[in-house]
């Protein structure tokens, strides 16, 4: 961001999300929003992450729990279907994995350097009900 002088910005350490007025921003897809230069949309925080969530669409039921609970709006969904993760803004907190209700989970945490293809090949199988109950005991 351009480093302006003390009289070159708006008062109050206040930042605008968008350039100009916005209408119905909730129905505008992120890639079509007029984000301002001070908006964090263009800033990557990927290097804050130690582990990353990976997504297996074979098990996903599109319940949208991950989208609802993600604190960084990093679950990318279109037409109420999960399509992937925004790895520029995901900080690897693992909440999406925690709330995922499928069996096996459709989202799992892996080391940052893990290859996606290998991860999908190693994805755990469905746990039997009896096993689950034993575990919870």
């Amino acid at each position, binding site marked *: 961001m351009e480093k302006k002088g003390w009289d070159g910005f708006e*008062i109050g350490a206040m930042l*605008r999300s968008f350039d100009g007025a916005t209408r119905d921003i909730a129905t505008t897809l992120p890639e079509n929003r007029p984000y301002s230069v001070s908006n964090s949309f263009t800033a990557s925080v990927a290097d804050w992450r130690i582990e990353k969530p990976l997504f297996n669409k074979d098990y996903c039921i599109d319940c949208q729990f991950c989208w609802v609970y993600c604190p960084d709006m990093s679950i990318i969904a279109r037409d109420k279907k999960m399509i992937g993760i925004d790895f520029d803004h995901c900080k690897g907190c693992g909440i999406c994995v925690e709330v995922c209700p499928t069996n096996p989970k459709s989202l799992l945490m892996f080391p940052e350097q893990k290859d996606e293809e290998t991860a999908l090949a190693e994805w755990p199988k469905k746990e039997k009900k009896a096993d689950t109950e034993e575990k919870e005991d």
Partner: protein
Amino acid sequence: MADTMELRDIEVWDGNMAASHALRQVQVDVVAAYPITPSTPIVENYAGFTANGYVDGEFVMTESEHGAMSCCIGAAAAGGRVATATSSQGFALMVETLYSASGMRLPIVLNVVNRAIGAPLNVNGDHSDMYMGRDSGWIQLDSYCPQNAYDLNFIAFKVSEDHDVRLPAMVHQDGFMTSHTAQGVHTLTDEAAFNFVGVYQPMNDMLDLDHPVTHGVQTEEDWHFEHKARQQHALMTAVLPKIQAAFDDFEKLTGRKYNLVEAYDMEDAEVAVVCMGTSVETAREVAEEMRAQGIKAGVVGIRVFRPWPLEQIAAVLKDVKAIAALDRSSPHGTVGALYNEISGTLFNTDTKAVLTNYIYGLGGRDLTKAHLVSIFTDLKANADAGKVTTPLQQYIGLRGPKLSFF
């Protein structure tokens, strides 16, 4: 729509009641408060006005003064007219958030009913809390009586909310001496009072959903300095002219004249006392009596403590031979704050004035006329000698052996 209240031309109000009626008349949107003595009746009265339909706004009881000011900051960022009141320990707890309010350029009005800060715990009036706020980036206006407490609230809202200013403002009054002493207060009608301040004009408000904004951001060494400089620039250049303009408008409306610096009998004064709060009125009375005895005495009352009107104060004091700065707060390790301010104001001028410092009135100890007579007598001796004839800093009204420093 809030009900209007029919007021008499002159109401018998104490400073707290006067302040709460001012808040009612400007129709504050949010008052968030955690009441504390001696400012409690301001928010208590206001809550009553709200419950009885005289205010279209919210009264929010919070869990602490820190929470009260935090709530005010949120409401102001959202785009509301906001006010609260506090004193002493509560003010101290608020301090962290005071810096947030001014740095975020939010026009909040805080009524501070000045009270001592413990230990030892004390509910009475001195200026310790007011002094604690002086680096917080707020505008600080000082009342000497209930009438001032009423009037200065309107000035505070008008200046603070001005888009060229957008800085929060404190209206100070002395605990108990002003806050609980009823006097005749000349009132404005609800309509005239509201129109003087006007409809709140939001700026960068969070409820403007077409222009989403983030308030309260973090800046490090790359931006912080510039933001603080911009805040200081507004405080130093925009505020005093706006206060003067508001004083002028207020005089046209009410006939009551306020000045950036209140000078009494200063035209030909040889000796002058500089003080704040209720002490100004006592000092004026004694100065008149000293004049009857042939001592050309004057009084300078600080009306605007922040921003400090350096040039105006230097002008008022330029021909004086001896000055006493009266500080009603323990300076804890140096000279009093007013002594320091006056020194800084007069240094680099042609003045040859002798300046001394008196610490008085801590924890509500009375400043009597006899005390002021002794101060003026000291000043006369300093003026005649052309040098300091007493210690630089003296305690006045203190029991036991005389205490002085430097």
